[in-house]
């Protein structure tokens, strides 16, 4: 069986539709047909993930022989350069330290909640490092490390999780969406940002992130379909960490893999070891490159594991065995990368110490920043609902101001200190 690559996108079938850029690919059969020509494989082989997940460094930190990495014709992944791998390792160490620091801050009551990506740091780091400066990222609530790796200030990144009322950072300035809690709604925003950029002829690629449970949501389907139909440069990056709070993947999907879902939208999917930052960078770098070159959207599923509970409010012992967690300890993304880089002669004790110092500095920054009391202005309730407050909001704002003024004057008259 082969899958036809002759599918046409909107505007190609009806006569008289002559718009150019929207549809340039499809006259010759669309991005899939283009890939078929480029890689000399069938459309089916291009869209379906390779038979095995891509893994380049095994869990013991050894580079696998090329023939065992999972690569196939049209699914070839060169080893990323040394500098990129060292930078990734540094961010892995920082990310792990951030995850564990934040969990401690939650226990101390200095953060309201923190969905930790402990164990998923390789995905976090690769998601940020595969993008260029003009690209956008749309993260979920568990992707704080990716947001920071993208260059957003650590304390600003944690603003929502300390219980503050706003996003902390300017999404447009950093080209990073707000960490999104309603599942997969942000994937459509990613599609829109990519669509706007494409209409203006910009070379922006957008990385849209979600988890395994989120693939059950309707917006997941709508986002992938819109991206494919409009041939948009979006890379959908699914971190399959095996659980949606307590519900295992088997209750979300019985597809052969999540990456297999891509073919239903006419896009290419790939599976990668989500604890192997080398393979992740190789696969995501290529996906971003293909998207930028006009291959339309792609989907990457990373196979990883949420080592800790969903959040501090969750108890993972109610739904999974310690023995299962233990298996994943052996696959830790940091230790395998440390072994690999050390064996390759790229990392020594001095390098380790320097990276550890940097991680500690970020942790200190978080401890200090999140220990500060941020004054709240009650009037902020009203200021940003609209660009210009409505008369109704002005009235309510005045009512609150009056209440506060009366409280203050009552406090002043009963407080002997203020009478001095």
């Amino acid at each position, binding site marked *: 069986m082969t899958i036809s690559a002759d599918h046409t996108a909107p505007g190609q079938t009806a006569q008289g539709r002559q*718009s150019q850029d929207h549809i340039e690919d499809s006259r010759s059969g669309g991005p899939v047909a283009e890939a078929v020509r480029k890689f000399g494989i069938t459309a089916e082989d291009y869209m379906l993930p390779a038979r095995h997940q891509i893994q380049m460094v095994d869990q013991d930190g050894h580079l696998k022989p090329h023939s065992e990495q999972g690569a196939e014709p049209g699914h070839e992944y060169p080893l990323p350069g040394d500098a990129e791998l060292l930078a990734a390792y540094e961010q892995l160490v920082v990310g792990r330290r951030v995850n564990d620091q934040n969990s401690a801050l939650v226990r101390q009551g200095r953060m309201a909640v923190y969905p930790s990506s402990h164990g998923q740091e390789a995905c976090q780091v690769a998601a940020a490092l595969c993008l260029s400066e003009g690209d*956008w990222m749309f993260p979920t609530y568990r992707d704080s490390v990716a947001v920071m790796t993208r260059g957003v200030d650590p304390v600003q990144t944690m603003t929502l999780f300390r219980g503050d009322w*706003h*996003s902390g950072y300017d999404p447009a300035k950093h080209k990073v969406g707000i960490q999104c809690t309603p599942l997969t*709604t942000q994937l*459509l*925003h990613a599609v829109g*940002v*990519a669509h706007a950029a494409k209409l203006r002829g910009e070379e922006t690629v957008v990385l849209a992130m979600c988890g395994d449970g989120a693939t059950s949501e309707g917006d997941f389907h709508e986002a992938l379909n819109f991206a494919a139909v409009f041939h948009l440069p979006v890379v959908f990056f699914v971190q399959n960490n095996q659980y949606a709070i307590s519900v295992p993947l088997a209750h979300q999907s019985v597809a052969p893999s999540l990456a297999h879902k891509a073919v239903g939208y006419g896009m290419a999917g790939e599976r990668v070891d989500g604890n192997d930052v080398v393979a992740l960078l190789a696969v995501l770098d290529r996906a971003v490159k293909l998207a930028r070159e006009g291959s339309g959207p792609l989907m990457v599923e990373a196979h990883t594991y949420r080592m800790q509970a969903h959040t501090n409010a969750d108890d993972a012992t109610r739904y999974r065995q310690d023995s299962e967690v233990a298996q994943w300890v052996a696959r830790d993304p940091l230790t395998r990368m440390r072994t690999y880089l050390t064996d390759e002669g790229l990392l020594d004790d001095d390098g380790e110490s320097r990276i550890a110092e940097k991680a500690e500095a970020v942790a200190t920054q978080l401890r200090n920043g999140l220990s500060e009391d941020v004054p709240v202005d009650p009037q902020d309730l009203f*200021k940003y609902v609209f660009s210009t407050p409505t008369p109704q909001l002005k009235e309510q704002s005045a009512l609150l101001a009056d209440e506060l003024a009366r409280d203050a004057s009552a406090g002043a008259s009963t407080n002997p200190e203020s009478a001095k």
Partner: protein
Amino acid sequence: MSTATSAVNGNVSSATARAAATAAATAEATGPQPVTMAKALNTAMADAMHADKSVLVFGEDVGMLGGVFRITDGLTKMFGEQRCFDTPLAESGIVGMAVGMAMNSMRPVIEMQFDAFAYPAFEQIVSHVAKMHNRTKGALKLPMVIRVPYAGGIGGVEHHCDSSESYYAHTAGLKVFAPATVADAYRMLREAIDSDDPVMFMEPKKLYWSKDMVDLEALRDQHASNTAAGTSTEGRAAVARPGTDATLIAYGPSVPTALAAAAAAAEEGRSLEVIDVRSIVPFDDETICASVRKTGRAVVIAEAHGFASVSSEIVARVQERCFHHLAAPIRRVTGFDVPYPAPKLEHYYLPGVDRILDAVDDLQWED
């Protein structure tokens, strides 16, 4: 006050925009002409698209077909498939993609095909469209318009008629506009597209083919001079018919019904003032309360269910502000609290002239 600026594309100079818009106006005669609301809405979109390249129109069947109500007729032909295009059949996708486009310097004007088909997009509207400006502390504006053909009176079958304005009005962060006249359809859609905040634009389906004598050229010029002067009619109610004895407060599809009731009452010697609310959010307390203080009596008319609705909000607001001016309790004439009825029962459900006049009769005239 908002202006039609775009961070990326900037604004075409108003002279150029006017020239382009004039060219696009297909052989419009000068002076007032019979114009449908559909034509006014269509012209408003075309003019906005001429004035600002970041204005895009998309939705289901809005391209070659011109929309199931033909409101986007000709826009694809005029501006190309990149500016006015069909999407896959997915309302959440349409709204969610528009959010991303608005985040990235576009001004999407999107169509929900029917009021009751907009509900798949509810999460995007409530959780993102309405909140983005607030949760980013003003860093991200979402200048987008969600056009909703709404309300009844067209004999639509199940799920094709709903008065959904209260859901949106209840959601902080959304402006909600409901034009009732042909001229307002043009004016208010231009202002909605100019708005830096998201607007739910509620288009009364049954008025799409109603005609008024309107000079579109004059409206276009008025919009241009308002923009230049930084003024607008946004958020202002209008006195649709002056009167002295009681005030009928209506919006959207109920305004012509209220005007018909006022005309009938006049024959019986009762002078009713009709207020066209125009903008549900923001709400013009000033104009509405000035009328009720003058007349001392009021009836609020809306097609939507009365329970927990825009009409109940209006009664509460007027009562809080005008209590000592009221000669009688404020009455409401609304749809019954039942699922929107099928065509065979719709007539019993919709506020009509007789029901309005009955309510007016109940305003304790003998006390």
